[in-house]
């Protein structure tokens, strides 16, 4: 497993501690401040600290470590408010007239406070100067505090990127970023394709490469992922999620191989390893000191070429252990039929689509080549659990997308 301490050059997830949706993936560098919303923050103090540490930014926008005890005291569920109210009648809002004038402090006043006081002191002042706070129900008071705490807290937490956090972050910032692959569907794919260390998987997944990263994470340091892409060449972001895992370069180089799908098509046509036109290999050992853009390009191309050759070699054995496919642009049927051919018998596959229709289109064709075919979706619900205020979240993502899963078999019947 990756190291526990934050080092320069690592990818980190930074977020405002009380605001999960504020998560951002950044590459942490010394003397390279980042912006969190409008807030400029210096990262120099995070190096050497452990992942998971919470910091508070001070007046210089440097980060100071906050200990957990301190953190617990700023927790949202303030004890005096969370005590069960029992059956006695609470205050209610019948006397509150909402005229937007309840806060006596001006915007400027608040700005002054913010520069002089800690966030909890700022909030304390806001409460004191809120004319309607006392009239509010305890629930409304809690809601008010929560809102203010979100707005004025200057706590940030630095987390080690992993697939769960990445998937959550990307999805919350726009599910189209990861082709609508919600964490619950991603989880089903990993299970149903029996993803484990040491085995060999075909993954079709471009965009931000979250599915590829998920399989890589489950391989540990051993196994193979052939990352198949349909674009003519690899897209700039197709390994972003894998890179974010901070794995050693050699580990990645030994496990992960990108391949354009037409190469696989050609492999399937020839039934032997194709000769790849080797435009770039000659320049592989070019002068590294001459760091022109051109030579870097050539090196990358050479690496990709080597990757592709290795991938084809592995595929040619037609003994892959699982196929995970995520395709939004193309009708998946002919792609699935092509890739399925490289799977060993009795190996599982999973096809994800944000739409049901292309999957039902696949279904009858796949019936000829697979058993245990199932079309499913999952329904993920998050709950607010607070004393006396527990309920499902009021807003949800209504669709996990659809999954078509099965196990490839050989249907030539053997007599016994």
């Amino acid at each position, binding site marked *: 497993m990756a190291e526990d301490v934050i080092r320069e050059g690592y990818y980190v997830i930074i977020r405002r501690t009380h605001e999960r949706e504020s998560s951002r*993936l*950044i590459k942490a560098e010394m003397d390279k401040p980042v912006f969190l919303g409008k807030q400029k923050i210096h990262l120099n103090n995070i190096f050497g600290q452990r992942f998971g540490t919470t910091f508070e930014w001070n007046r210089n926008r440097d980060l100071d470590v906050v200990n957990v005890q301190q953190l617990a005291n700023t927790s949202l569920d303030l004890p005096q408010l969370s005590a069960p109210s029992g*059956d006695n*009648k*609470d205050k*209610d*809002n*019948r006397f509150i*007239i909402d005229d937007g004038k309840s806060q006596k402090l001006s915007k400027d006043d608040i700005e002054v406070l913010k520069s002089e006081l800690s966030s909890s002191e700022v909030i304390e002042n806001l409460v004191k100067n809120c004319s309607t706070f006392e009239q509010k*129900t305890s629930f409304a008071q809690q809601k008010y505090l929560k809102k203010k705490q979100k707005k004025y807290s200057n706590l940030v937490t630095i987390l080690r990127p992993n697939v769960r956090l990445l998937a959550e972050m*990307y999805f919350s910032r726009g*599910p189209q*970023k990861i082709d609508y692959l919600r964490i619950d569907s991603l989880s089903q794919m990993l299970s149903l394709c029996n993803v484990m260390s040491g085995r060999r998987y075909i993954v079709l997944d*471009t*965009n*931000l490469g979250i599915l590829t990263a998920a399989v890589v994470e489950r391989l540990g340091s051993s196994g193979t992922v052939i990352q198949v892409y*349909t*674009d*003519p*060449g*690899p*897209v*700039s*972001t197709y*390994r*972003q999620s894998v890179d974010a895992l901070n794995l050693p370069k050699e580990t990645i180089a030994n496990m992960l191989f990108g391949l354009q*799908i*037409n190469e696989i*098509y*050609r492999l399937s*046509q020839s039934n032997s390893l194709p000769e790849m*036109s080797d435009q770039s290999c000659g320049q592989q050992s070019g002068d590294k000191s001459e760091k022109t853009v051109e030579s870097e390009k050539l090196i*990358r*191309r050479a690496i990709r070429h080597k990757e592709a050759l290795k991938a084809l070699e592995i595929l040619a054995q037609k003994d892959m252990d699982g196929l995970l496919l995520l395709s939004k*642009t*193309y*009708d998946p*049927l*002919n*792609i699935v039929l092509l890739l399925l051919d490289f799977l060993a018998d009795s190996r599982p596959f999973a096809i994800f689509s*944000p*739409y*049901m*229709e*292309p999957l039902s*289109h696949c279904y009858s064709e796949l019936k000829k080549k697979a058993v245990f075919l199932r079309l499913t979706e999952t329904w993920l*619900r*998050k709950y607010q659990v607070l004393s*006396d*205020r*527990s*309920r*499902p*979240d*009021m*807003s*949800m*993502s*209504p*669709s996990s997308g659809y999954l078509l899963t099965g196990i490839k078999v050989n249907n030539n019947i053997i007599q016994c």
Partner: protein
Amino acid sequence: MAQSFISYKRLVGVGDTLFVYLSPTNIYPIRVTTGSTFQTKYGALRHDQIIGKPYGCALQCAKGFVHLLHSTPELWTLSLPHRTQILYTTDISFICTQLDLRPGSVVCEAGTGSGSLSHAIARTIAPNGRLVTYDFHEERAATARQEFADHGLSDIITAEHRDVCCDGFAYTEYFDALFLDLPHPWLTISSANRALKPNGGRICCFSPCVEQVQKTCAALNDHHFLDIDTYECVLRPYDLKTQSMPSYQFSSTKSYSEENSEANEAMDEKSDESLAKKLRTEEDSSEKNDNSSDVKSNEYVLTYSPNQSTGHTGFLTVAVKYQ
């Protein structure tokens, strides 16, 4: 007074409440008044131009056309002024069924809130039913009363300022059905019990939180209500789009340009849409496609789910009184 919500007319008249429809998310109620003007994003709509037009027509404005739609409680629910959190049609529909509402039912509602449910109840129990609706907020009760009058519902709905938690329902064995949308419904079960007809009177309580449901069910049990059921009814909307989803065109020769797709290590999450577009153009012009038998462009009607939708509104607890 135009009874816009409980009768249909062919032509728009003065005093009607009607809905100007631009799109499913742009529906506006107006009360037709001579001399008034209503501004839409498609341009101004003078009320005088509307009067005498047939309901359901498409009317040309400066920058587009709008439809004039007859009032229904469902359209009202989508566009009413929110004075409180409101109930939406999914829950409202289920509540009306669970309370066995029909023409002639005598119904009680607490609290009135923004009157979203009240309109649907009034429609369902009209013409001879009666709805008594209470709100503990005096101003809210008054506003609702005026709204019901404007909508020609005063014969059916009585809106009163009353705190049923403290003061009860003021009726004995009177209501066929009783609906509670209160923070502490369990505190009113005893007087609700008195107010309901003894032989099959139905009660329904709406509460967002589990703890409220627990206390309400316990109170209903204590008062010997029967068939106590708790439900949740959540809407799942779909969007539709007819879309062609091409099969991938495999190529047995290298027709793609690696130059177009240099990997770069930037962290910006640039969408690959432009690339995909480029790709499609390239493929279209490529002459080297091996079209295997099944490669064609499949036309699908794809159903989309929106990225976010309502996940929870509240729990509906229903029960019946037989005693």
